[in-house]
């Protein structure tokens, strides 16, 4: 059964490759990485040019992602009330896959503020499916994390904002 899935992934990757146009020589291990070549279909937010660094360490601060959050300036002071609420929400809704101290099913949120824009984080929490479909970094993360799609936890804007505030403290 496992093989079926893997074969399917491979097949999908092959399909994507064949549609992707400008193919690039790429070595063995992660064939799924072929999905990266799908640059043409990306929305205009893809930020910097093709970056060889794995998505989890790639810095895409100028990319706001795709979704309802277009512009989110942050107050320089961290709001501790929001942090408290956000920490609680994170515990209930996110820790099944994200651990602060390590890479787990998904990446650790530690240091995320140095890699991603606030808008990108918000959009990823609020509509992960759309992000995976249309944002290159989100798509690469999906591939890097073994195809484990991030779950939509039906957070409200305010709840996602609280979680973001909590991330600022990590």
């Amino acid at each position: 059964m496992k093989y079926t899935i893997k074969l399917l992934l491979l097949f999908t990757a092959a399909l994507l490759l064949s549609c992707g146009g400008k193919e690039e020589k790429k070595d063995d291990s992660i064939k799924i990485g072929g999905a990266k070549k799908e640059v043409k279909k990306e929305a205009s937010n893809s930020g910097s040019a093709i970056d060889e660094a794995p998505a989890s360490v790639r810095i895409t601060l100028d990319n706001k992602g795709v979704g309802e959050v277009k512009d989110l300036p942050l107050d320089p002071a961290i709001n501790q009330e929001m942090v408290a609420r956000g920490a609680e929400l994170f515990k209930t809704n996110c820790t099944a896959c994200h651990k602060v101290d390590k890479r787990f099913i998904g990446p650790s949120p530690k240091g995320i503020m140095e890699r991603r824009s606030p808008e990108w984080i918000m959009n990823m929490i609020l509509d992960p499916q759309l992000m995976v479909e249309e944002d290159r970094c989100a798509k690469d993360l999906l591939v890097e994390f073994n195809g484990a799609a991030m779950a939509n936890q039906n957070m409200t804007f305010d709840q996602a904002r609280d979680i973001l505030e909590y991330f600022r403290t990590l």
Partner: protein
Amino acid sequence: MIKSKYYLGAIAALALFFVGCQQGANNSGKGALASSAAEKVYVAPGEQDEFYAFLSGGYSGNLTVYGLPSGRMFKEIPVFSQFPTSGYGYSEETKPMLNTSHGFIPWDDAHHPDISQTNGELDGRWIFINGNNTPRIARISLKTFETEEIIEIPNSAGNHSSSFITENTEYVVAGTRFSVPVPQRDMPINEYKSNFKGALSFISVEPEHGHMDIKFQLLMPGFNYDLSHPGRGKSHGWFFFTTYNTEEANSLMEVNSSQNDKDFIAAVNWKKIEEYVNNGGGTKMPTNYAHNLYDESTHTGTTTMKKEVLTVDPLDVPGAVFFLPTPKSPHGCDVDPTGQYIIGNGKLSADLTVHSFDKMIAAIDGKKYDGEAYGIPILKFEDVLAGTVKSGGLGPLHTEFDGKGNAYTTFFISSEVVKWKIGTWEVIDRKPTYYSVGHLMIPGGNSRKPFGKYVVAMNKITKDRYLPTGPEMEHSAQIYDISGDKMELIYDFPTHGEPHYAAGCPAELLAPKSQKIYRLDENKHPYAVTNPADARVERKGNEVHIYMSTIRSHFTPDNIEGIKVGDKVYFHITNHEQDFDVPHGFSMIGQNTSELLIMPGQTKTSIWEPKQVGVWPFYCTDFCSALHQEMQGYVRVSPASSNIKLSWSLGED
């Protein structure tokens, strides 16, 4: 509804093809193959139906949800039967829903669904359905489409003239088809006559949550109370029940219950009895019955055994109960949208008897009685008769209304639906059914406001309608377009179990409020883990409680050691998804029960009693993500004498 002209073209081409193959066949009879019929039932991929239809599952014990006009089945809602698909009746939370005074009963015979009403119009809050065999009434939420409450009916048997509701859902009514000794006792069967009673139960429905409570039971003479419907509009406050076996036979009923030329429709002024009861009337009788209530915040059902019921002798409330003579063992008892006409479908007759509510009131006011039965006044047939529908059919069973002045009656023996005009009683149209039709349903067709676009005929016999599947087949249903003067058969579809009656309503009444998830922050289940860090395993003697959480695509924890042969292991599983349509399943090898299917935000519990030493896997049964196949775990089971420490983990934790 048709989006693509190509489709029509294809249908037409197909029709031509068929026609071409049937040389010499008479094409004019192939109305249902005409593209116009196809167009009427075609709901294009991705589009949705105009109506919900809830069909009773009969001996499946459940309720099925269909779309009209497509005839597509969307869901089977478990009600009175265990349902391994979701774990209903198997999970610890839902087992109590099937408790009765006779113990746990995994099945019943579900009959007559009825949607709650406000001012005589469908309001889409709940749907009620009766269990016929071990008398019970269930209430199903039309937000979650789950059974929320089941109440057992004492002093009753063959709970058939049920579960019909009054026009503001003040009461859901349950009448007994089989009269029995009340209270039950050891006595000779042949002393039935004048000793057995027929209980008509009026169950109040609390307006906010719908909670049911037996307000009173009217202990009627020992006839068979077959079907019922509420008065509405001007007759609101009354309830009408058909009876048969007024002979009070107790054997060879087929013959002995069909001797009288006329039986009765019992007219019950429940408002009058309610007033009597509210003023302290009635007699409290010791009894024993189960009341099972499911709490949405704890996701758990509980059973309360009730020990008392309030009974009312009809003779103690003068002016509350009357008998309307009605020919030939009437079956269906239907009231038109205005509340003026009460239709008795005399199943051994060719004709329908229509009583007039106004004439009934006048006869009561004039005290024009034609004798009495056990002290209950019998009104004179001619005084209450509004008219007779001379149909020419045989075996009328049930009538529904289109809200445009027409009525539609099923005829079982002659297999047809007959359309007739209220007031003139003339037959306007008749169409064959396939075969031996029982109930029929027009959405809202037994309310003040029917939606008279389609009628669904539910048949008892299928025979050649579909590809044969051995001796046992699903029953067939037919959909007729009734928007014109003449009915038009537009579709056939198979139904599940044996649908006795159905209830339908416009899709927009329910679809927008249909619940998508259970909110994790509202989960009050005592064994819920709302935070994966709280996932744990606890031992209490030989009981082991596993507090487990799931999300795509893993269980927390997924490795458990320290379980021993002879333990009773409780898996309490909370689904941490908060997204629509992402249930997770759970199943454990060798478990003597069904799987669990856990909705987002929900907690369910399953028991496993390991009998063999080993390392035993469990897994998710619902394909949840690309990594679903990886969603599994192991439990190590050691000998009973082992002292392996209880431990659990996920990954390196």
